[in-house]
């Protein structure tokens, strides 16, 4: 099956988001794929507040079952969350659990004026009442597969399908 071009989706999101960027806009990308996408969007949208990067490992809801398996990256939010109009960026939206965790962590930094969710791909399958305001593309993913964003050594972003280890 043919996956959409991540680079084209990225440009589409830039065009879509451009009119929304104001003085209070700030952006947070979720490690790892969401951080790559956010680095790109943040630069092209020329957002003034420095980019925030977040690893939601300490807020996951499956810690009891899975523990801390991967070395979490450090969350850095180099701007004041209070009153900010936040663009929360992730690569692939699926169950919604990552976004739930990310919002919990964000509120430990302050009270944003608003949060909008930006994703490159929405693969459906939501388990929580969460939806994205800005979606690059809807992608159907076969059972037992995982949709991931990869960054090639050239810096080019690509969407790939992989066998889901958890399945």
């Amino acid at each position, binding site marked *: 099956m043919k996956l959409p071009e991540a680079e084209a989706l990225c440009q589409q999101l830039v065009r879509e988001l451009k009119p929304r960027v104001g003085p209070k806009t700030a952006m947070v990308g979720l490690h790892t794929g969401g951080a790559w996408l956010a680095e790109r969007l943040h630069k092209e949208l020329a957002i003034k507040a420095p980019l925030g990067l977040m*690893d939601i*490992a*300490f*807020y996951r809801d499956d*810690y*009891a079952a*899975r*523990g*801390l*398996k991967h*070395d*979490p*990256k*450090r*969350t*850095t939010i180099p701007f004041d969350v209070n009153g900010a109009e936040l663009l929360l960026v992730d690569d692939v939206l699926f169950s919604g659990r990552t976004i739930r965790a990310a919002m*919990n*962590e964000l509120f*430990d*930094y*302050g009270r944003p004026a608003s949060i909008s969710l930006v994703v490159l791909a929405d693969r459906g399958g939501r388990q929580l009442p969460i939806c994205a305001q800005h979606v690059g593309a809807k992608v159907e993913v076969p059972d037992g597969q995982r949709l991931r964003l990869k960054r090639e050594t050239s810096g080019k972003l690509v969407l790939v399908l992989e066998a889901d280890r958890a399945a």
Partner: protein
Amino acid sequence: MPRNPQLNENGELQHLLSIEGLPREILLQILDTAESFAGVTEREVKKVPLLRGKSVFNLFFEPSTRTRTTFEIAAKRLSADVINLNIAISSATKGESLLDTVANLSAMQADIFVVRHASSGAPFLIARHVKPHEHVVNAGDGRHAHPTQGLLDLFTIRHYKKDFTKLTVAIVGDVLHSRVARSLIHGLTTLGAPEVRVIGPQTLMPAGVEALGVKVFHDMKAGLKDADVVVMLRLQNERMRGALLPSAQEFFKHYGLTLDKLAVARRDAIVMHPGPMNRGVEIDSNVADGPHSVILPQVTFGIAVRMAVMSIVAGN
């Protein structure tokens, strides 16, 4: 070969008992995770929900302020419930055995036991007898090991020096009685520090210490020459009463860290001390409060390191 008692069947950290025998990957996992927790401790809200609903029992059979407090802060920042038991003045004095004490606490639904004990090996004994979902963290056992102190020392060194593979580290003082020194030496050699030196009088040097991969010096300035990291150990006053040392003044003259002696180390050397320090015995105030000293940051990093250890073991 028997399994490492600290690891579960998947090779993951189940208990933290000693740095000795821990693979490099697990040491790095702890240090990297601690790096993320260091970010949490700098925020306005210094708490994450990871260990919500879990109970951490601090079992201190030996007095400690700093270690017990930082474990308590770490557990609270992970949202765990903390119960402090000062066993030195409770059941043990009424004759209850160590394993009976632990069995009783286990019946109170413990998840993590943080154990400090004067007998080497006590945390290993407890780890062999706890239930599969319970975890033991050694907070110092006799002369044997103090792994979270060793880890926070490694974290501090990495924070200031970035790379272990070019470092000369000098550990100074009462190496013989120091569980801190032993834990740090194992950590440094596992992470590839090329030169680890121990400096002190012959009477305070364990026999055969060279086998741990260190160089022994009895002359302070020779040992400190070009060192990147200087770790001072506490001189335990009670040792003075044995015939190991003539006097505190005599020790300070030869092995106390002064600006004059520190001058032979590298200009950007850092000075560490696990605390509590004896000013004027192993370290001069000018050094302890001077620009090379990272003694207080060590305490702060200790919280992040203990958060990392507890959250890793409780998840495995």
